[in-house]
């Protein structure tokens, strides 16, 4: 762990060096009226004025649909082609928010809970995260309430804190980070002693996580779920933009004698998610599915995996077509 300073032109040089190294670089880009992570080649493509990207970096690290294996039957014999971790390209994520970077911990906790997930780990291994601490937030942000902060370095390989001169404080947090620095070592100079905290947005804590946890412990049969979820349409928007949601579906893409097995994103909010073949559905109503979503993130995960399933990025609130504001709902549970 080392802290350095980089000038505005230094950032530009370094960025070019990363791109020329052949790694894929994803950064927030403003297009189609939305800011989202996209492959970029130039620093000028990177978006400036925005609070949050629509989708989390999950969308850049994990494909929405991914081939687990493929097969072909030739003369009665099956040839199987398994997932190849080496096929995953080296990827650098530029300008990640701390709340996004923090999402890798809960994701890893889920994917490696009982068995280790080859695909997840391959993607993670090939990904380097350069986060930027936050100097702005909006009414949906609440990282400080879920053990995070605008300058949280968890999950980051390097964190930059932008300074008024256009330069930045560089925190080098991991060997992967060091490797990135090594691509253009000359632009990193000695730390000027600026305090990082001075440049972070002030985001008050909105609820007490332990209090919420304690309330949720007794809330399974509460009427709050029905009340809160009435307007929920049961779409999967919240889950798909969430940095920690990990539900997936397994599908077969079979064509005659060949085919492949595909893992694709799913959402616990879908009615079909828990539908049994018999027709029985243990989570038949939207209120039950809403309860699952909240309990899973704020109760089951802390209890079983020792990690909160929410990083406070606020994307679900922003994406929801009917304003299912998670902060508002959690706050109201905490106050009950």
């Amino acid at each position, binding site marked *: 762990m080392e802290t350095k300073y980089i000038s505005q032109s230094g950032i530009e040089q370094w960025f070019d060096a990363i791109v020329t190294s052949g790694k894929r670089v994803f950064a927030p880009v403003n297009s189609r009226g939305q800011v989202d992570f996209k492959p970029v080649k130039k620093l000028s493509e990177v978006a400036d004025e925005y609070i949050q990207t629509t989708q989390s970096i999950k969308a850049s690290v994990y494909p929405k649909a991914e081939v687990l294996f493929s097969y072909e039957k030739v003369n009665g014999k099956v040839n199987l082609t398994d997932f190849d971790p080496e096929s995953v390209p080296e990827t650098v994520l530029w300008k990640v928010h701390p709340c996004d970077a923090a999402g890798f911990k809960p994701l890893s906790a889920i994917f490696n809970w009982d068995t280790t997930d080859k695909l997840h780990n391959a993607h993670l291994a090939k990904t380097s995260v350069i986060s930027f601490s936050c100097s702005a937030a909006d009414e949906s942000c609440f990282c400080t309430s879920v053990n995070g902060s605008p300058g949280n370095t968890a999950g980051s390989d390097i964190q930059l804190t932008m300074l008024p001169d256009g330069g930045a404080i560089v925190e080098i947090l991991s060997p992967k980070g060091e490797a990135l620095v090594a691509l253009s070592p000359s632009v990193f100079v000695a730390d000027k002693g600026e305090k990082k905290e001075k440049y972070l947005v002030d985001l008050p804590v909105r609820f007490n996580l332990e209090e919420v946890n304690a309330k949720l412990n007794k809330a399974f049969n509460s009427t709050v779920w029905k009340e809160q979820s009435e307007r929920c349409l049961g779409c999967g928007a919240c889950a798909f933009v969430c940095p920690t949601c990990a539900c997936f579906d397994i599908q077969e893409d079979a064509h*005659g*004698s060949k085919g492949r097995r595909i893992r694709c994103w799913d959402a616990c909010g879908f009615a079909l998610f828990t539908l049994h073949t*018999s027709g029985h559905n243990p989570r*038949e109503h939207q209120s039950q599915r809403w309860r699952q979503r909240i309990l899973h993130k704020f109760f089951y995960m802390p209890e079983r995996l020792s990690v909160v399933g929410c990083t406070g990025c606020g994307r679900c609130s922003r994406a929801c077509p009917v304003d299912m504001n998670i902060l508002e709902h959690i706050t109201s549970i905490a106050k009950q």
Partner: protein
Amino acid sequence: MSKIGVFICHCGENISATVDVERVAREIGGMEGVAHAIDYKYMCSDPGQTFIKEAVKKYGLDGVVVGACSPRMHEPTFRRACAEAGLNPYLCEMANLREHCSWVHEKSEETTEKAIDLVKMLVEKVKKNKPLDSIKVPVTKKALVIGGGIAGIQASLDIANTGHKVILVERDPSIGGHMSQLSETFPTLDCSQCILTPRMVEVAQHPNIKLYTYAELESLEGFIGNFKAKIRLKAKSVNYSTCTGCGACIQKCPVKKIPSEFNAGLGTRTAIYVPFPQAVPNKPVIDRVNCNYYKRGACKICEKTCQVGSIEWDKEDEIITEEVGAVVLATGFDVKGTDFFPEYGYGQYKDVLTGLQFERLASASGPTFGEIRRPSDGAVPKKIVFIACAGSRDPAKGIPYCSKICCMYTAKHAMLYQHKVHDGESTVFYMDIRAGGKNYEEFVRRAIEEDTVNYVRGRVARVYEKNGKLIVKGVDTLLGGEQVEIEADMVVLATAGVANCGSEQLAQKLHVSYDPYHFFAEAHPKLKPVETNTAGIYLAGACQAPKDIPETVGMASGAAVKVAALFSNDELVREPVVAVVNRLAPPLYSTCVGCFMCETACPYNAIEHEEIKGRDGSLIRNSARVNQGLCQGCGTCVAFCRSKSIDIQGYTNEQVYAEVMSLLND
């Protein structure tokens, strides 16, 4: 894993000449789920069918694909064979290797590969087939016969004599049709009316026949065994229950100059009329188009003369509904008028007649009481020319077919003329003489040899009038192509027989197919000549194609037998190709959400509403349900259903999807 048996037919050499059938069997044999695949010279033969039956038992097949001819030909054959071997017949499908492959392609690699694809497609389909049970529907044992000519009369009498009820509908005020207009009939020269009228009377008096004259079919709904016919009874303006048929009104009717339809325009009739003296029923109707009262609001002379007060001025058309189990179409034909022929004067020469008009001239009941006289001046023609194939066999005129009856009746006409005008001279221009039929050739020879009719093989280019004569310019192709010019007194055109007017509309009402000339189409040109493509609707007589009286009567009796056979069962077994709305376990019960858009899409009103209720009797959901009796299996609802809640047995989503995918997946 499925156990499909595949049987590839050589069809003699019809398939094997262009398709490598052994390779087809070999490659299909290697397919997933195919337990047995062979090829054989004639799969439809007894030994061929035995192969299938034995294989079903030996390999425990749960599906059979026969790669042979069109399923439209032999599907029932092979399904029956499967059923006899204990396999549900609907687990048998046919790949069309003959009509769709071997006959339409040259021998090549591609042709064999296409054949393999076609079989593969059906193998994949059959894997998704489900055993189905035939559907049983009750049969209404009453027949509807449309058309009261000799075909309709014969069919009605034959059906009625088997003890079943018949509704006979005739468009004109009397039954009898064209046959009643004929003078004598070939090849015996017996009087047409003499042999027909007893039949007409029999129809009128038969307890099993209900006769509606001056009536037309309005609509037909339903299906075999269960039709609902709406019949329009046109207002006759005469109350038949009180009318005595005395004819006084006809005598007094002041409108006397209406061209008589019965006399093919050569005579006249009144506005209140009976078409001909022997009409059945022999009671008049008022022709409202020509009646003074209906035209101008005054007259009513007939009402004054009617002693029993039978005239009903305000009578309106009435529409009645009859439930019937079968329909016989016997709507007959029409002949082209002389105005169809510009080269013969556009119909403006009074002495150029159609064959039908000549029949009326020759008929004892005709306008000249059987004397051959010119319509223009009443003179007896001394020279007469008959032109055969007027319109027929002439693609330029849009009638490439042979009208079949003209050769014979032209010979008859010439003969009748010679018998009536002893010093007359008759000439027949012909293309060929087609006299196939019992005693037909002899009849023509008699005309030529005994009655000295002058037969000239050649066509007539033009007929024109000069100095009161009709100049016929033709050619004699047998004598060196000499041009022939005859100054005739009368010319008779054997004009083409064509479909009756309105036949196209009628076919559409009944959903039967018709050929390009609007004649109704039989289900199979050889093996199903009296059936139509619509089950329960049969054909009799010239509505299918021009034909003579013996043939018409034979066909009518054939249709009657088909009806009688249908009526011999109380229930009818139908193919289970019908739509079904899914029913599932609770809590869904069905994926149908009851938008009932299928209801508007269904051409047969087969969609019903069903309330699905819980144990406590509370309504869970409204769902659609298909009435299997009404459903005809078109599947329009299936393609329309957004949630895929309806499927059609025999062509399920899974089946057709598997077929398409098999063609594309390598």
